């Protein structure tokens, strides 16, 4: 007990000298993990839940197609729309979009292009199917149905 009493007189300050180092460490972690958002998403995106998720092996091969109800309903209406890059497109534009994305890749990688379909849960399958038909037409057959890990099971 006497030991405790002795120490009570000394100051109880936590040394803050290492604080900048700790903060820097956190900073570097976030700097490394940050992926700047490339697209400004104009449609609602609540992804479906699934359990059998696979990771994309090569990020550079992936292009994104967003489907969902527009956020700005006064401008785009309430029907689900397709978004590629930063703009709303119709199904006919998808082949062109795929070809543009393929041009960015090297010759050997072109067949391995993966289309990540980010589809809102409220979308009906009809429009998804239309997009898939266009993807088949454009010969971009690898499709990833982007979804989040389900907590059940």
């Amino acid at each position, binding site marked *: 007990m006497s030991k405790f009493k002795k120490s009570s007189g000394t100051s109880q300050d936590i040394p803050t000298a290492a604080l900048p180092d700790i903060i820097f460490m956190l900073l570097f972690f976030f700097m490394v993990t*940050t*992926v700047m958002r490339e697209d400004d998403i104009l449609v609602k995106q609540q992804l479906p839940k699934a359990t059998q*998720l696979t990771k994309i092996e090569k990020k550079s091969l992936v292009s994104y197609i967003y489907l969902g109800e527009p956020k700005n309903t006064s401008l785009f209406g309430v029907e689900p729309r397709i978004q590629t890059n930063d703009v709303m497109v119709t199904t006919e534009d998808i082949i062109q979009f795929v070809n543009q994305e393929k041009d960015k890749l090297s010759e050997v990688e072109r067949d391995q292009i993966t289309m990540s379909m980010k589809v809102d849960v409220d979308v009906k*399958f009809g429009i998804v199917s239309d997009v898939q038909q266009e993807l088949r037409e454009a010969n971009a*057959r690898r499709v*990833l149905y982007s*979804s989040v890990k389900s907590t059940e099971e």
Partner: protein
Amino acid sequence: MPRGKKRAIPEVSSGSMADIAFLLLIFFLVTTTIANDKGIMMLLPPKVDPNEPPPDITKNDRNIYKILANSNDDLLVEGEPYTSSMRELKEDVKKFILNFGKPTEEGIELYSSLPPSMKSFINTKGRRDDSSDDPTECVVSFKAGRGTSYELYIEVLNAITAAYNEIYAERVGITVDEWLALDRSDDIQKDMYERGRQNIPKAISIAEPD
């Protein structure tokens, strides 16, 4: 002043260092979106050549597991309305794939390559004549209507994929999560991946809606 002599020591004040770092930290915290590029992988069929007639379906009807979804999100599985959970659908698909009704030579070869736990499963449940001939022959067909919700579509697709993945994982003796995490750029893991999938093709057919 404790000291008599006062010398200017050239020193950058580091007191605000933490604040600066904090500011940067908060900036990156706000802009960070942890990449969640995960999902269910599918390979679409090649496009139809207009000059060629669509190929005739020579598959025996019992080798096709038919799942239909209508616009009201009702399921019809093998001609029967389906109300059970997705977990049961997964088990049913698994039973269908692992059925050895009338195995071909390839099927018998496949059977002998399976681990004992799967063999006993097949011997108790997988000898039905009215179900698929063997895993090399069977196809799971899923047809959704235009009005089917995407949520249901993914749920069913997830169940079918889960059935296949469980078979593959059990075959090489790992858990499903380990199977999904296999890195195909690594030779050992790639070999495992190929051993799991050998002779059991992931034949999922997504039919176009009417």
